[in-house]
Structures are given as C-alpha cells and as structure tokens.
C-alpha cells in the first residue's frame, strides 16, 4: 500500500506541503479574520539537530535545573485553586518546592517552602490555613511572610524579626495563571511573556475555570513528552484515523521571543490522503471515526463540515462566551497550540486544553504530564477541581471528563516509553528535526541552548 510521495510546494518562505495553506483556508471563513490569526513569524530557527544526551544524561538534567528551572517563569497554579485568604498550594520543580499563598489582603505571594529554623518544608499539601506554621518546632509566620511567633522566643535573641521574613519568590499572574520564578534577578513576568497576552485578547483565559485536571507520570524525559504535543507532523503515524478531517501537514508554525505557536486546521482533509473525503467523512473522522456508530449528525447540503462544526460550537458556547457570534469558524474549529518556554502549553481559542510537563522525582527518564481543561462559565467562577492522578499503567480513558480526547492521548503516549528507550540505546548522536513542521521544537531548543549556554 504505497502512499504517493508529497510534492513540496515552493513558497517565498520555503518548502511547504501541497494542499490548502492555513492562510488560504482562513480566506474561506464566514467571519472577519482577526489580525492574530493572520500573523506569521519570519524567525529563522537555526537548530536542526539536537544532541540525544539532552534527553538522557544526568549532567544535562542537572544543568537544566540550575539554568532553566531556577531561572525561568513557570506556571505554578491557577488563581481559582487558591480563591480564599489562607488558601495555598505547592509547585514542585526538580528539587525546589514553592509555596503559593493567598494572603489576608487577597494578594498572591510565593515563598520557598522551607522553614528558616531547620529547613523542614512548611507545608506538605495544598489546603487552607490562617497562618504558616512549621510542623517541626512550631515556628510561625503570617500569610504575608512576616514572622509571627517563635516558641521560646527567649532562646533566639539572635533572630531578628525583619531578617526572618520568609524569603519571597518572584510571582505574577496572567490569564488566571499564577507564575513563579525562583530567580530573584529575573526580568518581569510582563517582559518575559512579551506579546503572548495580545495573542489571547480574544480568548481571555482569566474568564475560565479548571474543569478537568489530570496528572500522570510517564517513563520518558519531560522534553520527549512535551515535544510530542508541539507539532502535527505525528498525526499520520500516531493518529491515522483523523486524517480525513485534519489538515495536519498544512499546519502553520510560528515563533516569537519566548513563545511559539502551531495552528492545525480541523474539518479539512489531510494532503496525505490518496482519496477525497466528503464533508461528512471530514466531520465523522473527528467526531465518530467508528464505522458502526452513527455520528447522529449530518452535514447539510449547503454547508461544509467546518461551518457546521463552527455553528455547533457557537451554540454550545452561547451561554458562557458573550463574544461567540463574532468568533471566526477557525477559532471554533481549529487547534491553536502555544508554548511558552520552558514547559507551559496553553491552547488558544476555545479548545480548552492546557498542558504542563515537568521532570519527576529528579529522574531524567521520568516526567509528569498534566492535562487541564479550562472551560468558560457563567456567573461566579467555580472553584478548581482537584487533580486526578493516574498510575503509570492506567490508561487516560480511566480519567473522568477527558471525553473523546482520552483515546487520542493514549495514542500519543503509546510512543513515549519506547521513544525514551530508543534514545537510550541509540548509537547515533543527534535527533533530526524538520525544517518547518518542527519549528516549535527548534525554537524551544534554541532557547534551551541560550539558557544552558550550550
């Protein structure tokens, strides 16, 4: 069963897939297309080869801890996880533990989760308390980090109240996300985010709440994991069932300063196919690829699958998204997946997805993957749901609320254990990245090189 080799199309930006480009698809939209979707970056990505040791060596892992995790702005929690005064949660990254607390003045502050007396972590879990008290000897701080009380104060004449204020970690918020940066000399969050907030102006993530939050430890390096979610190049290999309804190789990839973006059109056929799916095939591939289940939805004769899907999504969102009638079909149908260096992946428009990837248990071969669905709501923002933890051998389909994507995640992560094993056994020294479709990976590695000084 041979597949026709793709004939590349030459454009003034370089070689591109045959088929309709994303910008060409936008020309068919039923609504006015906003500038943010028309933007295309012109950045040259130098990195084409990535040393395999970045994924498997403990030395490189240690370098990442010092040069990346201790130096960059990272998504620590959602604001709705700590809505009330005294609410707190922990953000753990490598061997750092950062305590994020909402104070009596409603301000969010972050502290190193370490007692200034003999170093025991101050908190073990997320929760609510009216102050911060060490479980070991009872040293006691206010929610704003000021020292409140030391048992047997007379025994510590050398402890100066001012100097024993809990050391604060730089923190800031954007889009309902709380960010922390362990580096006291870092640039401001605003500077670090750059143009990213402007991209999300039409899709305010602060007007969402955490409806689903699933966490799973996976047996691979955190970069192997996140790089599986930064391109649509893997669709033909990993999610072949989607091909009738996804413009995988016509995706658009852009990169700016600290963030990158991919846009993959849905409800449009893949150029990989050697046959022409009709509108119903395109809808079915994304909704119910199963041949023995009726999708229950027929694309009307005078409509395309894209238009139908956009209309259905508009109806769903009508109650909770006031601007929904002005949103383009693209924003209601396609996938906009952003990456903020190093590990934060908020999706644009109304896909709801946010990913975060972190190393786990200080093991270069293990990582934690989190899937978060941020949903719009009406009225008061509901509080965040607790995290569902999946065991390593539990399928994503075990988690509640992931819907039809659970099986897609299952396909994605099917490769990751073997990918890590393959990298460990590899005799060659570098992985090789695509010029265009792996733009986001190349952008990531060029930033990584800058941070670690490689």
């Amino acid at each position, binding site marked *: *069963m041979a*597949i026709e080799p793709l004939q590349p199309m030459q454009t003034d930006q370089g070689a591109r897939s045959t088929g309709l480009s994303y910008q060409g698809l936008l020309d068919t939209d039923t609504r006015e297309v906003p500038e943010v979707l028309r933007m295309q970056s012109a950045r040259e990505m130098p990195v084409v080869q990535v040393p395999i040791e970045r994924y498997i060596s403990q030395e490189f892992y240690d370098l990442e801890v010092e040069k990346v995790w201790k130096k960059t702005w990272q998504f620590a929690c959602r604001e709705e996880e700590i809505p009330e005064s005294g609410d707190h949660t922990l953000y753990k990254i490598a061997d750092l533990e950062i305590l994020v607390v909402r104070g009596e003045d409603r301000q969010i502050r972050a502290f190193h989760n370490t007692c200034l007396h003999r170093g025991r972590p101050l908190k073990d*879990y*997320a929760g609510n308390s009216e102050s911060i008290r060490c479980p070991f000897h009872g040293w006691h701080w206010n929610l704003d980090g000021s020292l409140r009380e030391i048992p047997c104060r007379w025994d510590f004449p050398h402890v100066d109240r001012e100097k024993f204020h809990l050391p604060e970690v730089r923190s800031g918020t954007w889009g309902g996300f709380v960010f922390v940066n362990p580096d006291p000399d870092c640039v401001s969050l605003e500077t670090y985010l750059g143009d990213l907030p402007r991209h999300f102006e039409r899709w305010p993530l602060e007007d969402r709440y955490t*409806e*689903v*939050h699933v*966490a799973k*430890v996976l047996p691979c390096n955190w970069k192997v994991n996140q790089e599986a979610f930064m391109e649509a190049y893997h669709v*033909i*290999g*990993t*999610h*072949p*069932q989607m*091909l*009738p309804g996804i413009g995988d190789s016509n995706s658009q990839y852009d990169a700016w300063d600290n963030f990158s973006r991919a846009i993959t059109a849905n409800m449009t056929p*893949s150029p*990989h*196919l*050697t046959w022409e*799916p009709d509108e119903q095939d395109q809808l079915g*591939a994304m909704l119910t*690829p*199963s*041949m*023995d*289940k009726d999708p229950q939805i027929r694309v009307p004769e005078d409509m395309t699958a894209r238009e139908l899907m956009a209309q259905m999504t508009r109806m769903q969102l009508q109650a909770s998204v006031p601007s929904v009638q002005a949103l383009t079909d693209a924003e209601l149908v396609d996938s906009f997946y952003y990456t903020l260096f190093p590990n934060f992946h908020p999706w644009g428009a109304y896909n709801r997805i946010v990913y975060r990837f972190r190393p786990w248990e200080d093991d270069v071969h293990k990582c934690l993957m989190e899937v978060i669905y941020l949903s719009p709501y009406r009225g008061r923002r*509901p509080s965040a*749901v*607790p*995290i*569902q*933890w*999946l*065991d390593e051998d539990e*399928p994503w*389909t*075990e988690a*509640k*609320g992931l819907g039809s994507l659970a*099986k897609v995640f*299952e*396909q994605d992560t*099917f490769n990751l254990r073997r990918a890590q094993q393959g990298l460990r056994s590899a005799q060659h020294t570098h992985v090789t990245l695509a010029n265009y479709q792996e733009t986001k990976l190349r952008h990531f590695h060029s930033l990584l090189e800058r941070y670690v000084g490689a």
Partner: protein
Amino acid sequence: MKLRHPVSQAIYTSQDDGTVHVESEDGRTGIFKLDGRWVRGELKFADPHMLPFVGEPSLPSHRTRSMSGSGESRQRSGVPVPDLLGNDPTKGSRGMELGLNGKRVLVTAATRGIGLAIAQTFADQGCSVAICARGDAGLETTSKDLEARGARVFAKSVDVADGDSFRSFIAEAAADLGGLDVYVSNASGGAGPGEQAWQGGFDVDVMGAVRGVEASLPFLEESDAASVVFIASTAAIEYLGVTQGYNAMKAALITHASDLSQSLANRGVRVNTVSPGPVYFEGGNWEMIKQAMPQMYEGALAQCAIGRMGTPEEVARAVVFLASPAASLITGANLVVDGGFTKRAAF
C-alpha cells in the same frame, strides 16, 4: 467498534475477546492483541496505534485501588449518562432497567417500616446493602431477610445522632461492601411536642443527613452512579394539623438536599428527596394513631385522594427509582409520594 484506516484502507474491528480483527484492502485478514502482537491469520502487521484505539480498553466498573501520589482526591465532571440498554441495536428495547445490579447501598434505620422496605427493594434489585438501626433488635432478622434475597449485607447497631460512631459506621460499611453508590438518609427523631422533639429532629433527621453525606462522599465520588436520597415528609410542605419541630426539620432536609444537588452535581452525585404522606404498616405510627386517636386517623384517611394510606413498599419503589441510574437526569427533586394526601398544585 469498527474503523477504516484512512491510509491503508484496512478495516479494524474489535472482538469480544479483546483482540482486533484486521482485514486489508486485498482481503487478507489477521487477529492482533491491543499491544500490536500478531495472534493468527495471513496478515501479520497492523498499525499499533489503531489497535487500542479500536479495541475498547476494558475498565473495571468499581475500583478500590487507592490513588497514587498525593493526598488529593479524585474528581469527576458531572453525572454520567448510564448505558442501561447496552449498545446492541439488534436486541432492541428491553423495557426500563434500573441499572442497580451490583450497586452498593447504605440505608439508615432499616429494620422496620419504610427503611426496611427500601433495603428489601434494593436487595431485590441485586444491590449489596449496609443497614443500621438503634439497638440490636431487628438487625439480625433484617440481615437474614436481605441475605435471603441474595444481597451481601453489612449491619451494625448505631445511633445516627452520635456523629462519630455514625461516621465510622459509614466508613466500615464502605470498606466491607467495597465502596458505596447510594446513600439513603431515612432515620428520624420522630414527631412529638416540645423542645426535645426539635432537638431530636435536628440531631437525627437533619444532622444524620448532613453527616451521612459528608462521610459517604469520598466513596460516592468513586462511583459511576452516585446518588443520595433523603426521606422527608409531606408534613414539610402542607400543614398537618399539628405545630411541631418534626415538620420544620423535614423542611430543612428538602432545602439541604436541593443545595447539595447543586454543589455535588459536578462531582457526579445526584441528590433528591422523597416526601411520603401517611404510610400505614403494622407497628407504625398510624396503627398507633388509629387506636389512640381514631378521629385523627379517620381525618387523615379521608384526605387521601386514592382512598387509602400508602404502604412502605410504595414509598420504597419511589426511593429506589430516584436512587437508580434510570433517574440519571433527576437531581434536586422532592418527589411527593402520598396518594393525593396533599392538595396543593405541585408546581
């Protein structure tokens, strides 16, 4: 599930034994395990991503496994739509299934009257049942009765008003039954005059329901068919002829159930109330009233539009329906089961 590979055009079909049958475009066939291993047939390679996607991973319906990692609890995003008839279109409709078989139910004050009938009806539906009552009397007989109906039973003498022992009873019951799908708060401090009766109503009717839900919740959240039913009374919604704490306490239950139905909905738990009118059974209040206050009994009987009082079984059937997956869309309801005893239009 059956799926066509859009590139190779091969047809992937899941089999009942958990394997996947693959037929290539040129007619060759092969059987594969979900992990990609070839089992038999002419076709010896299949797309390893398609196999688990087509074959439904079989999921245990009740998991007792503890969570990994942290102390954080599992979450869910609402009440699932139960699959009561199965997916086989050739079988057609088999009438209404309650979907209770194998579910684990806890009923308080279940040795007599309405509580007993509720426990029996659940047992008849194939449920495991945990029951409690004050004192040992009746628990053994009831347990034997329920076991004779094929139910696994966990029974213990508990005073619902004693918060600590009531909570630990629920934990023990859930541990014994391997979880909990349904909690029925039936215990009542009873009717009567004076402040003591107010206090009894508060301690047993109200706080029994409040604590019962709190203690059951960690188990209910693990269930795919979680629901709670409070037993209130028509005395809460229409004047019974006696001004007493019982009526107001039952009203509190209806409001609390309504609140819970909202706050627990996205955790997958439905909460409803059943308000029975006069129910007559041997050894029940109305038998006593019939003897002691025949006028009052006759008055109440005359009010029952259907010409008789209810039986515990009739109330139990309403409770069991509301508690069952068949009622998956019903939450926050107060179902009045009174044979027309109350006269208001029930908007």
